[in-house]
C-alpha cells in the first residue's frame, strides 16, 4: 500500500514539473484502488524535439481510469525495438509493459510507435505506429492509451474522446470549451459576455446544445461543433433551459417556463413540434434520456425537496427514483442504463453519488463539498464532475468504484459543467 502511494506521489511530482507547454496536464491521485491491473509504461525514446510528453500522457490516462496500478519503469527509455527483460518487469510486479518511441521526421511530422507486452506470458499483445502532425501527437498518445486499456481490460477506452465544459474567465467573460478527455488541448466553441449553461452532446458528437444568456435571458441553442453554425431551438416567453438530446439526434428534451413554473417539453431541433411532457405544480427540470431512449430521468420538487424521478419518454408513468437524503439533483444515466449518477446533499455537503438501479445501493463517490454536474464516460467506467478548490471551479474525474479521483486542470478561470462526449468513430 505504501509503495502504491509512493508511486502515486512520484507520478504526481513528475507531472507537476512538466514544461509550461504541457502544464495543462495535472493529475492528482487522491485515492488508490484495489484489484487494479499492474502495468509499467517505460519512458519512450525521443528522437529530436518532441512537443508532447506522450509517455506521461499515456500513464496519466491509464492511472486516471482507476483500473491500473502504475509500476515504476525506471528512468531508462525503452523503445519498441529494445530487447526487453520480461523477468525484470515481472519481478517489479508489472504484468504488462509498454515501450515505445517518438521521432521527428524530415518532413516535420512525428512517428509515434508503441509495443505492449504481457510480461507473464512473455508475448506481444499489441503494436502500432502513428505518423502525424505535432497537433495530433497528443491525440495519438490518447489512442495508444485506449488500445492498451482495451487489450488489458477487454473494454473500450475513452481517452481519445472529448469533453465540453463552461469556463468563466471574468465577470463578463464566459466560454464554452471543448477539450481532450484529460482537460488539455482546450478550444473555445463559444465566447459570450453573458452566462452559458448546461452543454449537452448529441449522440454522434457532432453538435452541442446549451443555454446562453447572450440576449439577456436563457435561450436554448444547438451548435454544430466543426462549423460553428448555431440555431435557436427554444426561445419562448420566460426561461428556456436544460437541453438534453434524444438518442436519435432529432429531438431534445428542454425545460420551459412559458406555462408557469419550470416544466419538461420535447421539441424538434429546428424548434418545431413542441410537446409538453410533465404537468406538475412544482419544478421539473434536468431531463436526461436513458441510452435506449425509452425513459427520461429528471429532477422534481413535487414531493417537497428536489428528488430524481423517471418517466416514459412520452411523459407517462412517473416514478420517484431517489429516496435517501432531502436533496438529490442532476441525474445522469450510465451507458448500460444500470447506474444513476447524481449530486446528493448529505450533512450539508453536495457530493457525487451513484445508485445501482437494480439493487438500490447508493454509493458516495467524492469527499468534496460543492460538487456539481456528474457526467459518465462513454464506457461507463469513470465520471467527470465539477467541484471547487480555493473558490475556483475545477474539473475532476472519479472511477466509478469511487477509488481513484483525479483533478483536471483546464484553463485559468472558474470551470464548471463538464459533459463527456461520446465515442468518436
Amino acid at each position, binding site marked *: 500500500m505504501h509503495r502504491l502511494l509512493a508511486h502515486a506521489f512520484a507520478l504526481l511530482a513528475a507531472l507537476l514539473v512538466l514544461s509550461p507547454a504541457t502544464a495543462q496536464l495535472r493529475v492528482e491521485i487522491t485515492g488508490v484502488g484495489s484489484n487494479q491491473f499492474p502495468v509499467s509504461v517505460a519512458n519512450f525514446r525521443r528522437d529530436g524535439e518532441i512537443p508532447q510528453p506522450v509517455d506521461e500522457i499515456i500513464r496519466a490516462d491509464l492511472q486516471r481510469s482507476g483500473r491500473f496500478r502504475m509500476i515504476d519503469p525506471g528512468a531508462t527509455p525503452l523503445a519498441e525495438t529494445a530487447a526487453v527483460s520480461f523477468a525484470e518487469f515481472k519481478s517489479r510486479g508489472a504484468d504488462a509493459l509498454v515501450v515505445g518511441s517518438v521521432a521527428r521526421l524530415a518532413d516535420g511530422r512525428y512517428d509515434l510507435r508503441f509495443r505492449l507486452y504481457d510480461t507473464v506470458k512473455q508475448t506481444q499483445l499489441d503494436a502500432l505506429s502513428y505518423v502525424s502532425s505535432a497537433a495530433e501527437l497528443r491525440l495519438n498518445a490518447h489512442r495508444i492509451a485506449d488500445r492498451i486499456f482495451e487489450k488489458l481490460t477487454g473494454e473500450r477506452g475513452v481517452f481519445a474522446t472529448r469533453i465540453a465544459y463552461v469556463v468563466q474567465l471574468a465577470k463578463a467573460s464566459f466560454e464554452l470549451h471543448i477539450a481532450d478527455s484529460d482537460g488539455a488541448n482546450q478550444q473555445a466553441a463559444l465566447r459570450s459576455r453573458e452566462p452559458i449553461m448546461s452543454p449537452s452532446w448529441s449522440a454522434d458528437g457532432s453538435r452541442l446544445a446549451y443555454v446562453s444568456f447572450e440576449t439577456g435571458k436563457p435561450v436554448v441553442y444547438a451548435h454544430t461543433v466543426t462549423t460553428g453554425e448555431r440555431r435557436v431551438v427554444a426561445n419562448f416567453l420566460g426561461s428556456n*433551459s436544460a437541453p438534453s438530446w434524444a438518442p436519435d439526434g432529432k429531438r431534445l428534451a428542454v425545460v420551459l417556463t412559458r406555462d408557469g*413554473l419550470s416544466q419538461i417539453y420535447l421539441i424538434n431541433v429546428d424548434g418545431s413540434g413542441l410537446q409538453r411532457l410533465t404537468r406538475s405544480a412544482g419544478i421539473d427540470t*434536468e431531463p436526461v434520456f436513458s441510452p435506449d431512449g425509452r425513459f427520461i430521468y429528471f429532477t422534481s420538487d413535487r414531493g417537497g425537496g428536489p428528488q430524481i424521478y423517471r418517466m416514459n419518454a412520452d411523459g407517462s408513468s412517473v416514478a420517484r427514483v431517489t429516496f435517501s437524503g432531502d436533496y438529490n439533483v442532476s441525474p445522469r444515466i450510465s451507458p448500460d442504463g444500470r447506474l444513476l449518477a447524481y449530486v446528493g446533499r448529505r450533512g450539508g455537503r453536495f457530493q457525487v453519488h451513484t445508485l445501482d438501479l437494480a439493487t438500490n445501493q447508493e454509493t458516495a463517490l467524492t469527499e468534496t463539498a460543492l460538487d456539481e454536474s456528474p457526467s459518465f464516460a462513454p464506457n461507463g467506467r469513470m465520471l467527470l464532475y465539477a467541484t471547487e478548490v480555493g473558490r475556483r471551479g475545477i474539473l475532476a474525474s472519479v472511477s466509478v468504484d469511487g477509488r481513484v479521483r483525479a483533478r483536471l486542470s483546464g484553463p485559468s478561470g472558474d470551470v464548471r459543467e463538464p459533459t463527456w462526449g461520446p465515442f468518436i468513430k
Partner: protein
Amino acid sequence: MTTNRLMRLAACAAAALLLAACASTPLEEQPAAPVTDASAGAPGSKPGTADPRAVASVDATSRGLDPLTDPASPLSKRSVYFDFDSFVVKPEFQGTVEAHGKFLVANPGRRVTIEGNADERGSREYNLALGQKRAEAVKSRLRLLGVAESQMETVSFGEEKPVATGADEASWAQNRRADLNYK
C-alpha cells in the same frame, strides 16, 4: 394668498401620500376620504381659527421625486430574500412586496421585472428553476394585491449572477433573492 396656496399644497401632498398608501382601496371610496383626512391631519391648518401667528410647515422636499428613487420610501427596498431551497416570501418582506403592489396598482403604466436568484450550492439548472419559482412567488403576491398581469414579468438568473461571491452563509443569503426591477 400665500397661506391659501401653502394650504392647498399641504392638502395635495397629504392626499398624494394617502392615495399612495391606500392604493388598494376600491376606487369608489377614494375621492372623499383623503380630503377629510388631509385637513384633520395637518396641524394648525384650519383657516381663521386659533393662533393667528401659527406657522404651518410644509415639507415639499420630496415633491417631484420619483417615489421609487426616494430613499425614504418603502419602495426603495427592491429585494426579497429567501431561505435555502425555499421560495416562501417571509413575513419580514411582505411589507416590501405590499408597497410595490400598491405602487403598481396606483401606476398602471409602470412595469416591473421580477428577477429570481439562487445561491451557488447544488445544481445550476435546479437553481435556475428555483430562481424562477422565487420570482413567481413574488409575482403571485403582487397579483393578489391587484397588480395587472401585463405589468409583471418574471425571469431567473439562477446562480449565474451572484451579488456576493463569498462561500459562507452571509454571501449565500444575499444571493437567495428576488429583485424588483422597474423598466
